[in-house]
């Protein structure tokens, strides 16, 4: 007799399915610190880029067309 497939009665959520994958608290803290440093670098780079753009706009000659 072939084995009859039983219908599923429990439907696990993604959280239940991946519950075994927990990052230890200390490691989470390290990664949070790394993220904070990354965000600081990204915001600093954006600030520098926007101030370079401002300088470029200032030195643009008065008679330059909009297309320039």
């Amino acid at each position, binding site marked *: 007799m072939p084995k009859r497939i039983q219908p*599923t009665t429990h*439907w*696990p*959520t*993604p959280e239940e*399915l*991946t519950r*075994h*994958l927990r*990052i230890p608290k200390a*490691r*989470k803290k390290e*990664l*949070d610190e*790394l*993220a*904070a440093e*990354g*965000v600081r*670098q*990204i*915001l600093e*780079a*954006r600030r520098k880029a926007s101030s370079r753009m401002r300088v470029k706009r200032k030195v643009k000659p008065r008679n330059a067309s909009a297309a320039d």
Partner: protein
Amino acid sequence: MPPLPIDDAVFLNIPYDEELRSLYLAYIVGLYQLGFVPHMSSEIPGGARRLDRILALIQGCRYSIHDLSRVELSAGPSAAPHFNMPLELGMTIAWQILNSEKHTWFVCESEPHRLQRSASDLNGTDPSIHFGTAEGVLSELRNAFWSDRAPTVPEMLEVYRFVEANVDAILTRNGTSNLFSPGVFKELCWLSSAVSRLLREARRRLKP
């Protein structure tokens, strides 16, 4: 009946191939920046009921992304085609047909028009073409999950580059060279999530 899917959960069905490292990172980083949480079958431990649990994961996710760009044989002496992606896409399509309001799926490719040859049954489906680049993946993710609060693609690339620069340290710490191992995936998710959250907070502070 299964419970309603989690609205921000995205099942990521992509090739586990070291050569596609940049695409893998771009999917993780990009989804977090758009406010979504990626899930992969590598998170699920092996076993006889693995396919059941993969299906449960698909059913628990409101969205799924299926990258069919790896049509070549895998590298190495035991070269084989990657059949897992079409298999999991087939499972997803069947689930979506039966529960149309519970799931939305997207197909990604790196080359335009190739899907018509590799999976002609999908004719009529418009795949997102990422041209095999991280920038392409971020751009297509932004198109798929568009919102007026979405960061720009150059902003998303900044975060991608930061996470990419830290991958080797995460691999070393986990004692593996396997980028797709569950521990590495979880740490990449945590880092991407933390950076995205901090940048969102910074953007809110800057806006009057």
